[in-house]
């Protein structure tokens, strides 16, 4: 039995271990294929790939219950997939089609699946953080033990809403798992240019929140930490912040070559510290899977993506008439 490497009490079942591989690979390939669609002109607007950060979304979401909710960012596709959103409807949204999650109105930066607990990507850096504490507040008000997960990155931790929100989460003891995806950059600005301390988690501690910093590219470690954090939140012991160190596998968005990112740094994170390669080797070395099994999974992922792209491309364009009619209706008083 494969066990996660920190806490002996949390056991990662073989199924889950494999599933985490599948999910990470799905995110990786979803992003890569969407980027192709972007380059061919089928997708427009801003597109911020989650490439390289897959272990965080997957490790965290695997630690959640279905009825928990997540609040995402502008770099949100990974979170959506990890939380179980349908690839076809996601892809359709990126293509701006009626069959997309938001009927083509939202696009990449606003993709959401409200009933599925994905309460929205966000075009405003930090914009989702206060929303997450509200979700937690709502869950508690309803007397449930559901929790809210708040994804955000290093750049967002410089925004005032971060401090305000963790403070309120702390004083009201709200069930929020804060997941700080520290990929070291906000567009081209390195976090060490905008923060004195490399340990962003300390900011949470100062406001009275338990916090830990981990390598966000080790999916088992992310899973273990998130499991503990989520458990704490669920039992009323939260909130909890986990800072996951990670790295973008490229520029800020599809059109950013990221030439400001040092080559050796990039090589390290894309090479030895690639979350998928790491996990793949780990699964094989621990005997949980053969290379072949994983290749088969890769193939399955690919087929699902073929179907998703197919679905998306077949999905109709939204109708202007309907759009105008809905607009008219929304302006009417009841």
């Amino acid at each position: 039995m494969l066990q996660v490497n920190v806490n002996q009490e949390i056991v990662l079942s073989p199924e889950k271990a494999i599933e985490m591989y599948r999910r990470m690979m799905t995110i990786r390939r979803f992003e890569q294929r969407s980027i192709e669609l972007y380059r061919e002109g089928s997708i427009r607007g801003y597109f911020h790939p989650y490439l390289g950060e897959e272990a965080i979304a997957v490790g965290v979401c695997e630690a959640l219950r279905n009825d928990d909710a997540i609040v995402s960012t502008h770099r949100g596709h990974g979170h959506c997939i990890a939380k179980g959103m349908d690839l076809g409807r996601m892809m359709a949204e990126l293509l701006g089609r009626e069959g997309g999650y938001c009927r083509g109105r939202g696009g990449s930066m606003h993709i959401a699946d409200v009933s599925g607990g994905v309460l929205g990507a966000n075009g405003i850096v930090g914009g989702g953080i206060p929303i997450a504490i509200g979700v937690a507040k709502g869950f508690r008000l309803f007397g449930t033990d559901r929790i809210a997960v708040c994804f955000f990155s290093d750049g967002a931790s410089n925004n005032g809403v971060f401090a305000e929100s963790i403070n309120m989460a702390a004083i009201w003891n709200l069930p929020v798992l804060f997941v700080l995806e520290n990929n070291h950059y906000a567009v081209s600005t390195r976090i060490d240019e905008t923060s004195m301390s490399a340990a962003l988690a300390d900011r949470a501690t100062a406001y009275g929140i338990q916090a830990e910093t981990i390598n966000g590219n080790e999916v088992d470690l992310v899973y273990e930490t998130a499991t503990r954090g989520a458990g704490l939140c669920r039992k009323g012991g939260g909130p909890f912040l986990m800072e996951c160190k990670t790295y973008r596998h490229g520029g800020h968005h599809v059109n950013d070559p990221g030439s400001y990112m040092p080559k050796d740094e990039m090589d390290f994170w894309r090479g030895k510290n690639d979350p998928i390669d790491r996990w793949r080797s780990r699964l094989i070395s621990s005997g949980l899977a053969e290379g072949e099994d994983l290749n088969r999974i890769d193939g399955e992922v690919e087929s699902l993506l073929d179907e998703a792209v197919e679905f998306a491309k077949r999905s109709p364009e939204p109708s202007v008439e309907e759009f105008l009619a809905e607009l008219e209706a929304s302006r009417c008083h009841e």
Partner: protein
Amino acid sequence: MSRVIMYREALNEAIAEEMRRDRTVFLAGEGVAERGGSFRTSVGLLDEFGPERVVDTPISEASFTGLGVGAAIVGCRPIIEILFVDFATLIMDQLVNQAAKYDFMSGGRGRVPMVVRTQGGSGNGLAAQHSQSLEAWFYHVPGLKVVMPATPYDAKGLLKSAIRDDDPVVFIEHKLLYMSKGEAPEEEYTVPLGRADVKREGNDVTLISYSRHTLLCLEAARKLSEEGIDVEVVDLRTLSPLDKETILASARKTGRVVVVHEACKQGGVGGDIAAMIMEEAFDYLDAPVVRVAGLDTPIPFNVTLENACTPDIKKICSAARLLLYRNEVM
């Protein structure tokens, strides 16, 4: 059974009744719980509903508004109190980029049934950062509803509707109205959003206003009636969605319209309403639609200067007279 209550009591009753009716309603803001609200609108609520539903917040307006957005998304009906509309400057991202657009951006699959209750206007010597009238900003944002009641009756009925509404509503009270009194039934009632109220009927000239200036218009109408001028007073109550039908019906009837508000004239909602009337009823107009509005200045501290900034009854009457005179000589 009707009785006379104060505006602030009307608001308090509306909140309490809705909180009793629906346990997803909660109230959050600075000093709303232990202190019962800076304007005493939430007195007694903490005792009845407890600290999970009546929440004193830190001075973190942006984020506790976001708290409301998040709670609303998952099915609560939060009432977020922003002490002064001047501090709405701090919540515009959560209000405009998040709350107002969520329904639309999610393709209609998410709703944000939140009320932001706030308070504005000048007249208490609170100077430039505590006296603004900023409704035009919210009015310009698709996805927000904007309510500005003038009377206790409307305040109560509209706040209840706002809480039940599935869209984000900005509900702006007027600081000089909290102690004003008016009739309101003991029995449950609501006032629908989006409907103006003709508070006085008349044939010669229409005064269109909202919030406190509705009351000034009614006084102006009484004064003008002594001069034989028959004034209609339309109280918008809800600015957005705007009740164009009621406005246009009155404009077509009288052919002469004055739009009155306290907010700065430049870029105020008065211009928008005047333009709309011109577009839709040009051929009925015997005179230009004119605006009587606040001066385009920050509000000064000094009482005399402060009073000079806000339209008073005299200015309203002059504008109405001018429209009629103008017509006579044409």
